[in-house]
């Protein structure tokens, strides 16, 4: 899925791209802020685009700074759940359920 041919790093963050990104990240940006935002994002893309030229052939991607492996937990239950403390913000709950506007299908 190498896509470097089909686009150029540091390309302009247009309205459509911002729309798609705000959809994915569940943000809404007021129309009046879009120009400033897209200018800032463009500058940021220019900055991060500098990695494009880095000589990374043969380099493995590094997801963790330390090279160790996952410690595993024994399958033991702990019963220390305090629903009241977890639901201290009672405006979001009803009968111990969290509530959201009705989801359609």
């Amino acid at each position: 899925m190498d896509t470097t041919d089909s686009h150029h790093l540091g390309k302009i963050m247009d309205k459509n791209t911002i729309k798609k990104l705000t959809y994915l990240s569940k943000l809404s940006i007021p129309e009046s802020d879009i120009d400033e935002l897209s200018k800032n994002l463009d500058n940021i893309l220019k900055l991060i685009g500098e990695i494009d030229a880095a000589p990374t052939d043969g380099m493995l991607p590094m997801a963790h700074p330390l090279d160790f492996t996952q410690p595993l937990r024994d399958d033991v239950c702990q019963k220390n759940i305090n629903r009241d403390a977890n639901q201290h913000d009672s405006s979001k709950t009803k009968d111990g359920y969290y509530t959201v506007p009705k989801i359609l299908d």
Partner: protein
Amino acid sequence: MWETVIGLEIHVQLATDSKLFSSSSTNFGSEQNTQASIIDLAMPGVLPVLNKKAVNMAIMFGLAVDAKIADKSIFARKNYFYPDLPKGYQISQYELPVVYDGKLEINVEGKSKTVGITRAHLEEDAGKSIHDLFDGESAIDLNRAGTPLIEIVSEPDMRSAKEAVTYLKKIHSIVKSLGISDGNMEEGSFRCDANISLRKPGEDFGIRAEIKNINSFRFVENAINYEVGRQQDILESGGAVNQETRLYDPKKDETRPMRSKEEANDYRYFPDPDLLPVEITEKQISEIKKSLPELPDAKKERFIEEYGLKNADAEILSSSLDLSEYFEKASSNVSSKFQLLANFILSEVVGLSNKHNLDISKAPVSSEEVAKLITYVSDEKISIKQAKEVLNESWQNKTDVDEIIKSKSIEQISNIDLLSDEAKKILEKHPKEVQDYKNGKDKLMGFFVGQVMKETQGKANPKALNQILNKLLKGE
């Protein structure tokens, strides 16, 4: 002619005590949100710690389907927003799943074929959204959030609903035999999505639709058959199938597209930085291999060898853990007549279970009782017909079979002298029929047997009676 192409994705809840990344309980049916810890609720700052048993269970499954086990496996985040997904991402696996490249042999109508298993990966389950509890609001219960699952992805190797169901049942039997899942479909421990497409034989794969969350074997068959019909209609009228996710509605027996909430979804998988690569050693694998219980295929072979069962019966008995356990428990209480026992269980006990919609493990007549019935039949104490009657009665009233036999005094009369006396009395009563029989009216044998049975309230041993009547009628 269209060829159906089916691939299945099966979600299996693992039978661990605690969740995949937290130590809260996985029990089903607790009060809402009382099994959701700060980790399951995705409180700010919490971190996941992986359950060792879940990893071992995934390895067990991999070994059972001849798959490769990754020496290094990685967890990834699948990002999307939904209220039953507290973190806004699901911890799953993308690259380097624990299990990959496996296979399973299935038998459909006497033909065997191999279904490829692309991968089986560990992931966490979501919570539940309940839409009909409150007015204008959906209710969220996160008790299930974080429960460990393995998702088993098959190759698109199946060509009919029958094959798909057979494959699904076999996977079900394997996970139950391994003890890694309770396989309870009603409670959602075993769920299936089906990818279905049609093509002209020899051509490339067609466009597929994904049918989500089908939660019984019967529904899988119905859903696939409906979907195949639907796609066929579209294709034959020159249309094109939409690549989409559809929902099966068992009430209407149809599939329909899900409201496209997944508009332009992009899950942005990336390695979860809160979790390190999981290392699986050869030693760990070989230890698990040693502790692996007997799997359905091996069990079938053993049933044929040890009990002399017919291939088809061995196949059915071994395909379900509950059924094979019932059979084996019963067989340990009979000294021979295993095939008779198998027949009796497969037709009578399974029949009653199906009729009452019960798991055979919950049958009110125990395997020991069934073993008694078969022993009495083989000792000619009762007839097979009587055994069936006693089983039925025992099933209904939950009484011991011995008690039923005693109270109804339905023990057979096998005593030769006693039976001879009875037979002689009948023959003396019906001289005309005796004469007719001797003149070649063979059918009258049934009449004589019936008359003796009537006199003995059906307790006469039919085999012995036949011999005696033959001797009396022909010997004269």
